């Protein structure tokens, strides 16, 4: 058998729901494991993104400077970049801060409504960008998988199609919001 396809899953500004959907593939994960190797995920103890990844499933919108650096690096080292779920595809919930502006949100969260230590953090936590953006507004995306979250079936379908050397057609399988 040929070498396994390397898969990374990344979690930017999202709720981890899309990752839950990945787990919801259940026993199919074991089947997939015969063909793919999960080289990088939030749940694998690896700090640096690998030099080369065949498929990356990226959850979440680009919300902080850390997200921005990550997504650029991922794009550089990935063959097929998949925007996984509505936050990655369209911004979704994280973009709800955009109309108000990041400063106003920080002010509300860390000062107005804080009961102790009223101060906007300036270290350790990555700085938030002025505007939250979907991934394709930062780097080119190869496959868009809508849904909040996309179902395990759809994720399984996309991976198996890619393994079979086809570009998955998702028109009738996904929609925003579900």
């Amino acid at each position, binding site marked *: 058998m040929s070498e396994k396809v390397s898969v990374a899953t990344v979690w930017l500004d999202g709720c981890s729901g899309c990752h839950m959907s990945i787990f919801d593939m259940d026993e199919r994960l074991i089947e997939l494991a015969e063909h793919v190797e999960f080289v990088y995920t939030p749940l694998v103890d690896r700090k640096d993104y690998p030099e080369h990844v065949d498929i990356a499933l990226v959850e979440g919108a680009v919300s902080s400077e850390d997200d921005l650096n990550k997504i650029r690096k991922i794009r550089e080292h990935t063959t097929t970049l998949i925007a996984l779920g509505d936050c990655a595809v369209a911004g979704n919930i994280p973009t709800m801060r955009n*109309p108000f502006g990041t400063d106003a949100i920080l002010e509300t969260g860390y000062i107005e409504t804080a009961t102790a230590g009223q101060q906007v953090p300036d270290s350790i936590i990555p700085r938030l960008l002025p505007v939250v953006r979907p991934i394709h507004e930062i780097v080119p995306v190869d496959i868009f998988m809508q849904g909040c979250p996309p179902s395990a079936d759809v994720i399984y379908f996309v991976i198996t199609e890619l393994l079979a050397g086809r570009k998955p057609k998702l028109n009738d399988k996904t929609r925003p919001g579900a």
Partner: protein
Amino acid sequence: MPVRSRVKTFTMDGQDVSGHESETILEIARQNDIDIPTLCQLDGLSIIGACRLCLVEVVGWNKLVPACATYVEEGMEVVTNSERLQNYRRMIIEMLFAEGNHVCSVCVSNGNCSLQYLATKLGMDYVRYPYLNPDRTVDMSHERFVMDHNRCILCTRCVRVCDEIEGAHTWDVEGRGYKSHLITDLDIPWGDSRTCTSCGKCMNVCPTGAIVEKGKPAGEMIKRREFLGYLTKMRGVNNNE
């Protein structure tokens, strides 16, 4: 004198069809199970031709025409679903998604929304235009309903149903261009409106989660539009004349 024919024969996507001269391309398409997407159009309300989704090609005509507002003509060759039309329709839907703050996942109309339905049907996999993230308000002042301007696509169905069917004309549009927005009365909170009869027609004809009932959890707002059919029938109203 030659006799004037009131029934027109023509083709639609290569199929032979016929229609009365008082019928539109859209009506004939629906009679023949040819699907043309619409958004601002709703049977029972006046035709405004604003959303541009129902644009079709007529061979030999230099402009695309709205199927909802174009009467049938003898010998016309209508094309309803060319690749060019599909592209334009998808782009128009993308423009709407980029314009407002449509966050489907937390919308009470999630799963029961015309915009969402059309996005899927017309093959929108993502929005290529930059999101505008407008700063819009939510009017919660009415005791039964909510107006969420973030989700409004300005189809003006609410304006028309309120004016043409309910007769209240509580709703109207203010502002120009991308700053256009709906208002109640002379731009006062909906709850303070003296003309609103709280009939809920606007809520039921609203295609998105812009006008909804209070207290609905995400995904559980289902609109009921049956009333339009029988009201217009009982009253014998034809708003297109």
